[in-house]
């Protein structure tokens, strides 16, 4: 009986705290993405010739993010019937966007105009409760910040990963 009560209270705290944290996190992600919308991320390997002369520098951003108890439970249920596991989708999405943002903030602090050749990498750090499912993941984003001295290149407002305005 005591075990069931502990389990249910863990589920409830996981749900309440986890959902609140996720909402706050998304709010801050949207705000910072809007603030950095003029720093485009480009996956291509070659720089256009008219960027010369320019300076380059390696920039990285990483984050370790964990799933809450409730979502973990829902995902375990989903494993029985199969299909889309939306609770992990939001975890990975938050991790990727946060890692990208940290990389862009690092590039922004260097005064970069663009970030080229971006690579992303995801690895699972701990294996959850019964050692067979994802507990937390690390996302690393890295790329080459391109600093073009003085010359301001026109960047359209619509560029960037997201066009959502924070409320």
């Amino acid at each position: 009986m005591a075990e069931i009560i502990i389990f249910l209270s863990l589920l409830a705290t996981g749900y309440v705290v986890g959902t609140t944290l996720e909402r706050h996190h998304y709010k801050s992600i949207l705000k910072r993405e809007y603030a950095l919308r003029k720093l485009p991320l480009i996956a291509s390997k070659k720089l256009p010739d008219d960027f010369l002369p320019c300076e380059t520098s390696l920039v990285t951003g990483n984050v370790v993010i964990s799933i809450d108890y409730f979502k973990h439970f829902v995902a375990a249920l989903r494993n029985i019937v199969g299909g889309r596991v939306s609770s992990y989708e939001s975890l990975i999405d938050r991790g990727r966007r946060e890692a990208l943002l940290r990389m862009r903030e690092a590039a922004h602090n260097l005064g970069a105009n663009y970030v080229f050749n971006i690579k992303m990498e995801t690895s699972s750090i701990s294996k959850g409760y019964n050692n067979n499912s994802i507990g937390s993941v690390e996302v690393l984003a890295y790329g080459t910040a391109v600093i073009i001295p003085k010359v301001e290149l026109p960047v359209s407002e619509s560029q960037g990963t997201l066009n959502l305005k924070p409320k």
Partner: protein
Amino acid sequence: MLLTTLEYVPGRNVIKHLGLVQGSTVRAKHVGRDFMAGLKNIFGGELKGYTELLSESREEAIDRLRQQASSIGANAVLNIRFSTSTITQGASELYVYGTAVVLE
């Protein structure tokens, strides 16, 4: 030492290729952090201790790459890639590699 994920350095020519250079480090989490992470697993969200641990370890891997590159006389490392692998439950390896070159 110039580090870049590009395959060349814009505006500068490569005089000499010196081959692959690498840096790696294996890090374990300590008990305190592991305990806090266990708590965080209930609530979800970022595990700041781990984020710092991994970024410090990655810095160290990059340092080793840099040392190796400068010991063979390179002044830049091109096409850098990172890779992470979990060795056991508590330890992960951070690996960074690239091509050492001499720029003019």
